[in-house]
């Protein structure tokens, strides 16, 4: 049986850990609430914008626009959204697993892949991979990202696409479904694919009027719609990160409680055993003196 002093030390060390995880849980909970609200507000906008992009890309005249041109995919660009810090459960691991899998598949199909990472964890992961170019690294944007933060990323990827250096752009992020369910998923930003759009309006685009012209409409809206896609992915990921971190920290605090309970029990047993032994020794001594 361990000595009572050693047990006491272990108990107090676990208590300290519990305080930290508890504090992190509370911080994440309040951050999560805000992130969740932000993500929910603009979700409908993003979904409609995406389905519009997808439907636009199926029109003939649109093919000539540099952002909607369809070509054989030889170079792929991934935008991976992860966090700067760990301790968020499987948040980073899940989305990086998808990234790793897609890159592996691209290698088999002879597609060159590049990666832009947002968040340190993603950069660390991609650096270790072979046969993939780490195109640029951005730190995670903190809790209140502004549209200005993502501007440089968007400009880079659109320029790459326009100059035909990449033929497909995929965002890998974590979709926020509820407090308990978050799903790492991928969204192809350019070209927008039809199968992911949430709704289908069946009408013929042959009769659709573009005002002032197809190019005019696309020039004025396309970049904005794409910006919103990236923006929403960022918000969803942020909400997922915070709720996963909260859950992970809650589990850690619960575990700490269990360990404290076990150790306290062991400590009490050890203490009682010590008392019993001392009593036995004393009464043994008294017996010996009687003779």
């Amino acid at each position, binding site marked *: 049986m361990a000595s009572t002093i050693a047990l006491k030390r272990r108990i107090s060390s676990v208590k300290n850990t519990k305080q930290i995880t508890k504090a992190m849980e509370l911080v994440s909970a309040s951050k999560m609430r805000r992130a969740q609200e932000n993500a929910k507000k603009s979700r409908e906008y993003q979904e409609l914008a995406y389905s519009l992009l997808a439907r636009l890309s199926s029109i003939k005249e649109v093919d000539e626009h540099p952002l909607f041109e369809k070509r054989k995919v030889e170079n792929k660009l991934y935008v991976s959204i992860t966090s700067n810090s760990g301790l968020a459960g499987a948040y980073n691991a899940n989305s990086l697993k998808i990234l790793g899998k897609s890159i592996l598949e691209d290698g088999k199909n002879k597609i060159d892949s590049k990666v832009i990472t947002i968040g340190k964890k993603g950069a660390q992961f991609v650096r270790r991979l072979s046969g993939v170019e780490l195109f640029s690294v951005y730190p995670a944007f903190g809790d209140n990202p502004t549209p200005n933060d993502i501007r440089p990323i968007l400009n880079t990827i659109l320029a790459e696409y326009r100059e035909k250096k990449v033929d497909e752009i995929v965002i890998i992020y974590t979709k926020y479904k509820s407090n308990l369910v978050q799903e790492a998923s991928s969204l192809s930003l350019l070209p927008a694919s039809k199968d992911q759009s949430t709704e289908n309006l069946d009408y013929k685009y042959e009769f*659709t*009027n573009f005002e002032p012209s197809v190019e005019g409409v696309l020039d004025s809206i396309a970049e904005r719609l794409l910006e919103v896609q990236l923006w929403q992915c960022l918000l969803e990921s942020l909400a997922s990160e915070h709720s996963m971190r909260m859950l992970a920290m809650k589990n850690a605090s619960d575990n700490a409680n269990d360990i404290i309970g076990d150790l306290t029990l062991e400590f009490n047993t050890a203490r009682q055993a010590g008392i019993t032994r001392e009593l036995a020794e004393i009464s043994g001594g008294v017996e010996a003196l009687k003779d």
Partner: protein
Amino acid sequence: MIHLKLVTLSGVKFDGDVHEVVLPTMTGQIGVLTDHMPLISAATAGIISIRNNPKDTDYQMEHFATFGGVIEVASNNIRVIVDEADNSSEINEAEAKKALDLAIKMKSESKDEISLERAQKLVDRNSIRLQVAQLKRRSRS
């Protein structure tokens, strides 16, 4: 009746059947009624006005201040996807006036092109907000 859905970055602002919608587009204001032809157009800064019933007067129309986005009309569905749309009840007239004055002052003080452009945008935005707020007052009196 035609179905209108007004979606902004801060949520869905309007979702329902209406009689007529007046929308600001790049080529001017357009009114959209039932069975309008399919249309995709870029929206500019301006006022979106909604007439809920055919017999409503202009004073009973609902107004939203908006600053650009996309308009999609198809099979009696109008989708307006804009960054912001503020209902007249959401805008405080005094505040909008103050913001406009500030923006005009900024514009007169701006020296380079970038800040001038930014100030001009603010002036446009706030003058529309003010217009919408004033429309509300007129409809009440």
